């Protein structure tokens, strides 16, 4: 009887995966193996957490509002009424 080979992954594969497909919830055998690896490897899970923090920092950053003077300049350059 054939036994199903378990897919294992190395830390460098995990690093590449989390940097390329962080927010893609794929369900392949490789992805499941990576998720399993992350549960048991503190180095990889720390790197993943750090990466998520970096993204969150940029994502939640406030963007200055468009000021009335900038909008006025824009509409004037386009010769449009506001």
């Amino acid at each position, binding site marked *: 009887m054939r036994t199903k080979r378990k897919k294992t992954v190395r830390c460098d594969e995990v690093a590449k995966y989390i940097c390329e497909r962080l927010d893609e919830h794929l369900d392949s055998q490789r992805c499941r193996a990576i998720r399993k690896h992350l549960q048991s490897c503190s180095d990889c899970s720390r790197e993943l957490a750090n990466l998520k923090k970096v993204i969150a920092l940029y994502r939640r950053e406030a963007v200055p509002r468009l000021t009335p003077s900038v909008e006025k300049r824009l509409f004037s350059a*386009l010769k449009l009424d506001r």
Partner: protein
Amino acid sequence: MRSLVEPTQHESELVRKARQGDKGAFSALVKRYESTVYGFAFKVCRNQEQAAETLQDTFVNVYRKLDQFDGRAKFSTWLYQIVTNNCLMKRRKRKIEEAALSLDAAEGEKVGADPEGAVPHQALASFKTTPQDEFVNKELRELLDEAILRLPMDQRIVFVLRDVEGRSSEEAAKILKLSVPAVKSRLRRARVFLREQLREYVET
């Protein structure tokens, strides 16, 4: 948070009328997307004045090229193509100006220290809390500015489109006229670079 206005039937009608020379329709399109374009430009160039210039150049180009928009792509994808081109053009122009300034410096003139010509953006309303918070926020903002400004422009644009604006790899590929694997490769390099740049701040 997705910053783009979702397309509606009304939008295609506005585009159609604007293409026929209806200034009111074009004005409505500008109103609809001006904050999106300005916000994206600011996230890429980290400078309010440069974002305002990019905003203006983008809509001037949109007006000139509206005839070329065939409706096969989403209007927002087409708009992002124009704004990203403007960001890249501005970067090239600044590189040339920097090279000219370097030549001047070699002849004894002073040169600004910031390679991007970026000036710190003003304190934003949402950051205003206590003086201590303000200090921490200012420090963090400067760190984020420094790190992202060190990224090559193509990686920076991919990072902003994918991770900050939440666009898909497929849409980013259309906007940048790249393959999806090329987008993913740039994104991976950008993420690794930023994580290394900000390691001390985010290390758990």
